[in-house]
Structures are given as C-alpha cells and as structure tokens.
C-alpha cells in the first residue's frame, strides 16, 4: 500500500514536470525544439549579420525572414537558397529585394535542417521539424 502511494506520487511529479516542459512550447515536439536550438547557433554565425537577430532584415538591402506566406510557399526552395545563395529579385512582405545572397556550400544537410527549423518555427508559424530528409529531397531539385 505504501509502495503504491509512493509510485503514484512519483508519477504525479513526473507528470507535472512534463506539463511544465510542454506548456512552454505547446505545439512543438522535443525534436523540433532541439533542432531549433542547434539552428539558432548556426543562424547567429551564418545568417544574423544580414537578416538580424529577430529575422527583421535590413531596409531594402536584406529581406526579413518573418513573411510566413513566403516561407510556406517556398518551403521546398529554402534549402537550396541557404546552400547556394540567391541572385535576381524576389518579393518578400510586399517589397522587392535584389541584393545578391552568398551561399554557404560547406553546410551539411543536417545543419541546413537545424537552420530552417529555427527560421520556420521562430520567425514563421511552422510547428514542425524541417527534417534532413526534406533538405536532401529539396537539394536534389535545386535550380
């Protein structure tokens, strides 16, 4: 009987800890949260100078990464943009941007998955992991 009460209390403590953990990020799995944390480190190193700490961009030089429509509509092109860069003009949040973006060819598919999970969940409205498989598939179809 004592044992049973003991077990119950442990379960209830565990349950409340889990509740607290999940209540911070209600819609995001632990895997997605881990990808985003790793992605933030890479983002600071490779992307933040131009695109800003909050993905706000800079004037008409560098586009913001907060346009959820752009992120959702171009989800399958994002991996190629990160790896190979971008030239020509694009429309983001109703403005035209034509500054050439340098690529970062040394990034591995998992690095790109980390970065894109961070960008699409922190600045966009995605709640799911941008997986390695998704990155590899997209990279196979780069223009």
């Amino acid at each position, binding site marked *: 009987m004592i044992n049973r009460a003991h077990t119950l209390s442990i379960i209830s403590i565990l349950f409340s800890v889990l509740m607290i953990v999940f209540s911070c990020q209600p819609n995001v799995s632990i895997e997605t949260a881990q990808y985003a944390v790793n992605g933030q480190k890479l983002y600071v190193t490779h992307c933040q*100078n*131009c695109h800003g700490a909050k993905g706000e961009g800079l004037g*008409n030089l560098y586009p913001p990464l907060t346009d959820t429509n752009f992120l959702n509509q171009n989800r399958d092109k994002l991996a190629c943009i990160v790896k190979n860069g971008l030239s020509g003009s694009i429309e983001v949040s109703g403005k035209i941007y034509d500054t050439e973006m340098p690529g970062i060819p040394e990034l591995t598919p998992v690095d790109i998955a980390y970065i894109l999970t961070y960008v699409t969940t922190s600045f966009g409205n995605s709640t799911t992991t941008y997986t390695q498989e998704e990155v590899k598939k997209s990279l196979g179809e780069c223009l």
Partner: protein
Amino acid sequence: MRNNLLCAFGLAIAFLASGCSDSKTNKRLPHIGNHSTTEKVVDGKTVIDTNYYQVPEFRFLNQDSVYISSADFADKIYITNFFFTHCPSICPTMQRNLLQVYEKYKDDNRVAFLSHSIDFKYDSPSVLKSYADKLGVTNQQWQFVTGEKKDIYGIADHYYVYTKEDESAPGGYDHQGYLVLIDGQRHIRGAYDGTNDEQVKQLFEDLAILLEENK
C-alpha cells in the same frame, strides 16, 4: 560583528555608486590620441596650450559623384566607419546599429555620418548610392565615400581603425567594425564596436554628452 561588517560594506558600495552618478552629470569625453603642447607668451606670461590629436583634412568622392571634404564636417559632430557594400561579415550589423543613431538624429544638423568604402574596386559612387537608398538613408546627413586606396586606408589609420585587403577574409577585405565619434574640431572623442549592443548603447550616451559640451 559579521552583520556590522556587511552593513559597512553595503554603505561603502552605496557611497561609491552615488559618487559615480554624481560625476556622470558633468561628464566629459576624453580626447583620444597623442597630445602635444605649445608654449606661447601672452601679456608677458608664458601659457601652455594643449594640442589634441586631430584627424587630418580629407577629400573623397561621395555617393552622388561629388567631392566632399573635411570642410563639410567643420563644427559638426560626426560618426565615421569603414565598410564595403557586399561585406558578408560584420558590416550589416554595424550599419544596422549606425542606422539607429541616424534615425534618432535625422534632420539634426549638428550631427553627421561618414561611411568609407574600403572596396575601392567595386564600390563606385552609383553602387554606394544604391546601397544608401536601400539602407534607408534619405538625406545628405549620412555620406558614403570612396577614394584612392592609399587615401582611404591612410585615413583609416588616422582614425585608428584597422583596414586591410586580405584574400583570406570574408569578401576579400579585413577590417574593424568601430564607430568612431569625432567632434567639431576633428578630435577623436570615442570609438565603439558597432557589432556590440552594449557599446552601441554607450555611443548613444556619449553622443548626447558631446552635444551638451558644444552648447
């Protein structure tokens, strides 16, 4: 006993803190660089004047293909830096922060901004003009200039900012991201790492102090 000690320690800290805030109200910025002195005789008495380090006169081509010179900055406080338009590393952060200062002091004729391009090969006046427009600079208060390599790199030395052509650096040029604060007599009054938020905050504070000094 121990409580007494703690109490005394706390009081000492409180005194120190109040001492700091007192001195802050009439704070003056230092003059950076080597000083020299000259003696002269005024009304039969020998007087010693301090000559602060002064950035030499300059003349560069701006974003409108017009030559501007140090005379255009006479009696103005200006903030200057070194960058290039396709710089992939520190420049965007530095310019984003300087843009905040520009936006705060926009149309305040006491304050000006001067960005030197260290990429004398690519950054022609038209490239600088396009960059300035896209950054969000809409008046003549912030000038973007180019010039001969020796002149640009030479003036960087005079502002104590390191600049170098370096193939191994990102974008081909190595340089420091300092925002240098210059008073109306071309004396250097402060230098702040334009990629460090704390130091940029200090720049805002020091600029306000320098504006008070000129009143």
